């Protein structure tokens, strides 16, 4: 090789050097970022990194009171599942229950106490400290108490049971105000009132779907939204294939097919508002066929004489044959069960309709036997079980009082009446007459937005509490709700807020409400219950009982007498048989269609709309996500020239909403159905401002017997606006096109 010159050598060295530096830089650039190992300062006793632990508590996504287990890893909640030992949920959950984690980790949660910083309802708030916030409310309440004006303080909550309800009641009582109301759109007022009429007691009986062989449901969407869907679903599974060689049958009577209707063997679209009449028609057929053998047989014949199948058939648009077939099956089934709910219990005839269904159960002899209607004995933890009415009447009274200027301080906890009341109740306008509105809430919503002061509450996964499921499960049961994670933000549980307010107000309140925290209060109450049951209640033993209950999340006495067979007197049932026909707001000529708002399994009365998993969950019947729609029978739509996505203007006598149309094969041609749940204004980013809220256009009609809002008794007219809106749905073609999808290939055809 020739000699390398000095100059060349330098060039080679330079190239090599540049290369080496480049190599090092490359190595540096592809190196992973430094990760840290953060040890604990002091590890908690039950801490194991990378291993999950489970804590049991109670679901608060609806009022069913399911026990849940929450999977925790490294202090964070990862997954909600049913608590296997809890008699209501038995290890199962529904979609809403699963989505509870979205509530806990919701990015829109209120993180500190807030004070209104602009005009009321403008939505501009500024942060204040807990001390200031509690002092403001406490001093105001204290002053009213001293002035003996405490009745000008009102407390409105969502459906609250257990010790929290007791604490609220005690607080208001000590304050000197008896105006503590609950409001829950889903509260079954009509059912309660009808049961009072039929059985003399306004409790929810246990509907034993599990052991029934024939379930006749009048509008009750028991698998999706009604009372205790998870428990009913478990029972439904058992009814279908729980027992060898027996498959229970279900029939659903409703104008628009619900989730339950889709699973039923028969779906019967009776004319809206005539469900009770149909029940009486079936009862008539049962009695006239001689299937009823009670001593008061003749009286029943007389009472039902007016409801001959011919007449009922004409009014309900259900054929004679169908009525007698239903009567036959209902009477002949080993264990038949009739239940009423949903739209059938939301007309102006709500109570009369439910009473008619109760009569049907009575005639078929379904009371107090397995597979029928079972009455719970006096509950364990009786004080906690006392159910405070959460119906419409209370909130109407409140509105009236506010309009009259009788309310000086309104405390709202976990209720959203601005959203969940018809617009012509004028609740939002009445709020303007209240000098101080205090909202106890975890999330911003339409009602919270109207508040002067927001006290942010823990979610149920961060709070102490307890609950007795309503209806019971046939034996004494109580569940404990415990915080499964530490509070994420500077928030307090509602119970702790009340206790702090009591201390703030002073006087006898802190003496009578002596507990430092909600946890202490719950423990104290449970100790009392324990002592009541175990005569020699040593502290050591209670501690063991308490730990065991906490671990299990539930306490129960499955062996205890359920009292299921004790049937209350039903003598008044006959007397209460009336002609149950619903009166609709709006004349048929001006308003040709009946509005059928329905609760959805995802949002219920709209409370689930801020949870992204539920927004992204396709509607079970239509697969629509993110938005609302109005369902029309294809024939009706074709007649009016309406196509999917045409924006409709739906007008009732009291209001108008705009919503895109969607044809739906399983709805009566004279009905337009709308899901409840969307149409929020200010319920966080996921609820957004999408869709429309059908409750707003419902006329404020009242069922006279129960005071319940007759939300299914409004007629509407629809008009095309000419606009188009894309309805986002996940379904493609919803016909099988003869493919082997739902059943094996049929060799014969």
């Amino acid at each position: 090789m020739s000699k390398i010159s000095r100059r060349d050598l330098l060039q080679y060295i330079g190239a090599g050097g540049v290369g080496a530096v480049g190599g090092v830089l490359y190595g540096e650039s592809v190196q992973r970022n430094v990760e840290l190992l953060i040890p604990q300062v002091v590890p908690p006793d039950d801490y194991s990194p990378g291993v999950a632990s489970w804590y049991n508590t109670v679901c608060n996504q609806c009022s069913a009171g399911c026990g849940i287990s929450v999977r925790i890893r490294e202090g964070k909640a990862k997954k909600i599942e049913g608590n296997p030992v809890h008699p209501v949920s038995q290890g199962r959950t529904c979609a809403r229950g699963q989505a509870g984690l979205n509530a806990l980790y919701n990015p829109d949660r209120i993180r500190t106490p807030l004070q209104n910083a602009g005009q009321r309802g403008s939505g501009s708030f500024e942060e204040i400290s807990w001390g200031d916030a509690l002092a403001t409310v406490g001093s105001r309440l204290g002053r009213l108490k001293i002035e003996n004006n405490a009745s000008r303080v009102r407390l409105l909550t969502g459906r609250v049971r257990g010790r929290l309800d007791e604490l609220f009641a005690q607080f208001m009582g000590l304050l000197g105000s008896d105006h503590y109301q609950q409001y829950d759109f889903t509260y079954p007022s009509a059912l309660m009132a009808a049961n009072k009429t039929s059985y003399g007691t306004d409790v929810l009986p246990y509907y034993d779907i599990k052991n029934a062989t024939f379930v006749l449901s009048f509008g009750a969407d028991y698998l999706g939204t009604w009372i205790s869907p998870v428990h009913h679903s478990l029972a439904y599974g058992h009814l279908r294939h729980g027992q060898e060689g027996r498959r229970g049958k279900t029939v659903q009577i409703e104008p628009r097919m619900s989730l339950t209707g889709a699973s039923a063997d028969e779906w019967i679209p009776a004319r809206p508002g005539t469900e009770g009449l149909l029940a009486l028609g079936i009862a008539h057929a049962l009695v006239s066929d001689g299937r009823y053998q009670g001593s008061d047989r003749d009286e029943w014949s007389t009472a039902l004489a007016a409801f001959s199948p011919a007449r009922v058939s004409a009014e309900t648009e259900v054929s004679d044959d169908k009525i007698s077939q239903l009567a036959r099956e209902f009477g002949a089934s080993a264990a038949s069960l009739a239940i009423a709910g949903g739209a059938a219990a939301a007309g102006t005839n709500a109570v009369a309709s439910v009473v008619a269904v109760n009569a049907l159960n009575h005639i078929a002899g379904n009371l107090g036997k397995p597979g029928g209607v079972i009455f719970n004995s006096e509950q364990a933890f009786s004080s906690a079980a006392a159910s405070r009415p959460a119906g419409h009447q209370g909130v109407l009274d409140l509105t009236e009082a506010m309009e009259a200027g009788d309310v000086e301080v309104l405390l709202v906890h976990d209720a959203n009446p601005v959203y969940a009341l018809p617009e012509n109740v004028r609740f939002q306008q009445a709020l303007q007459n209240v000098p101080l509105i205090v909202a106890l809430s975890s999330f911003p919503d339409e009602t919270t937005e109207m508040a002067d002061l927001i006290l942010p509450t823990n979610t149920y996964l961060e709070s102490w509490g307890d609950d007795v499921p309503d209806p019971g499960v046939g034996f004494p049961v109580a569940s404990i709700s415990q915080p499964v994670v530490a509070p994420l933000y500077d928030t307090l549980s509602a119970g702790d807020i009340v206790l702090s307010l009591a201390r703030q107000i002073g006087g006898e309140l802190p003496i009578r409400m002596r507990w430092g925290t909600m946890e202490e209060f719950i423990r104290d109450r449970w100790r009392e219950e324990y002592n009541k049951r175990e005569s020699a209640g040593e502290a050591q033993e209670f501690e063991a009982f308490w730990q065991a209950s906490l671990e299990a999340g539930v306490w129960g006495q499955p062996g205890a007498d359920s009292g299921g067979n004790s049937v209350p007197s039903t003598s008044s049932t006959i007397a209460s048989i009336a002609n149950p026909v619903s009166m609709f707001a709006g004349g048929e000529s001006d308003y040709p269609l009946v509005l059928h708002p329905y609760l959805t399994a995802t949002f219920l009365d709209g409370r689930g709309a801020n949870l992204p998993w539920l927004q992204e969950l396709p509607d079970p019947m239509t697969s629509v996500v993110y938005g609302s729609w109005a369902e029309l029978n294809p024939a009706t739509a074709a007649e009016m020239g309406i196509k999917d996505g045409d924006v409709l203007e739906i007008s009732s006598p009291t209001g108008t909403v705009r919503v895109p149309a969607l044809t739906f094969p399983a709805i009566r041609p004279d009905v337009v159905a709308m899901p409840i749940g969307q149409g929020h204004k200010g319920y966080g980013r996921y609820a957004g401002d999408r869709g429309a809220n059908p409750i707003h256009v419902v006329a404020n009609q009242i069922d006279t017997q129960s005071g319940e809002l007759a939300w299914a008794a409004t007629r509407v007219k629809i008009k095309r606006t000419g606009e188009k809106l894309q309805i986002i749905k996940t379904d493609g073609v919803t016909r099988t096109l003869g493919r082997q999808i739902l059943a094996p290939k049929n060799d014969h055809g």
Partner: protein
Amino acid sequence: MFDHGQPSYAEVNKDVLATMLETGPKYWILLGTTMGVAGICFFMPWFYQLIVGVGAAGMNRNAVWGTYLSNFIFWIGLSHSGTLLSAVLHITNSPWRKAIYRSAEAMTLFSLMTAALFVMVHVGRVWFVHWSFPIPNQMGLWPNFRSPLMFDVMAITTYLTASSIFIYMGSVPDFAAVRDASTGLRRRLYTIFSFGWRGTAREWHTLGWAYTFFAVFVVPLAVSVHSIVSWDFALSIVPGLHHTIFAPYFVCGAIYSGTAGIVTVMYCLRKFLHFEKYIGQVHLDSLGKLLIALSLIWSYINILELFSSWYGGTSFELEALKFRLIGFYAPLYWEMILFCAFVPLLMLSKKIRWSWNKMLVISILINIGMLTERFIIVATSQPRKFLPDAFGFYFPSWIEISITIGSFAIFATLFLIFIKWVPSISIYEVKETLKPLRRDA
């Protein structure tokens, strides 16, 4: 053979080399334009897509394949006639091949490259695309040799390699001609390119032998490549794709579109590089006849495909067929039938077959039809498979449309660069066709 009288050997050299050695401003403007379009329409949207994800395109959960894949098949198809035609005609000793085969082969090469680019654009994580090659790696993993995509990788890389060698080998004597006609750096480069070609009898003999060997080798390869591309589809069980006819269908379609592509390229070469002397009516006429034959085969296979769908009688195939014939994309389907089955029949008339302008239009129409065909294959079948509830719909996004346009610019750019580096007509083979008349005269 020659429309404007036979040129002399020197004229051939001069005419062809002039296209390489003399570059006017028009060329630079054209090159700048195509590069600009490629950059703006292809690479910018692609980089955007790399950053946000393939979601930038219009595909969705029901239609996970889209325009990128249909363009991939289109470009693979376009690659087909070049090398294949050249090889077949070489073996069958058709003299009219000699003036056109170089650019036809270049077309093959560049459309293969464009097609490979579409693979890159198509996949979700292009930064890991090397995992589909069987190369040693720190994970100790092999690719999956059962996968039709793996067959594809193999087939296309082999085809690309073979085609490159084929075109290069055929160009060596011409590189030597360039070398001899130039000085300086260019001379140096072409010295390297021409491997020291001196034109001895032995060299000619070896070249001839090797060239023929490769011609024979490339033919089955080309047939296999598009068969394998068709298996990407046919090996699925998707209604409308799971057809045994697919391999011949794709091969035929590929040659068809490629031949039409050659006509387009011929027109451009003749027009812009002034090759009127060398590319004449005989080429046009022969290509026209070939196109008619291919069009008839293509139509026949199409009819067969419809027939077997209908005759199979399953709900899946019938539904797919129905959607294709009268669904949303039916206008495109009928456009394809018009352009690929009926328009070519016009060439039965000699008047049309002999007109450069009319043939240009027809050739472009055929390729539009073929582009549509590929789009229809992708867009009408796999969004609508077995479960009606999961039926979906595909419509390309502007990014996909832009990248499609950009791909033509990339092809044009590569071709423009090619004509300045390689004699776009084979000098020595054209000379072979000259009758040694002049020398006598």
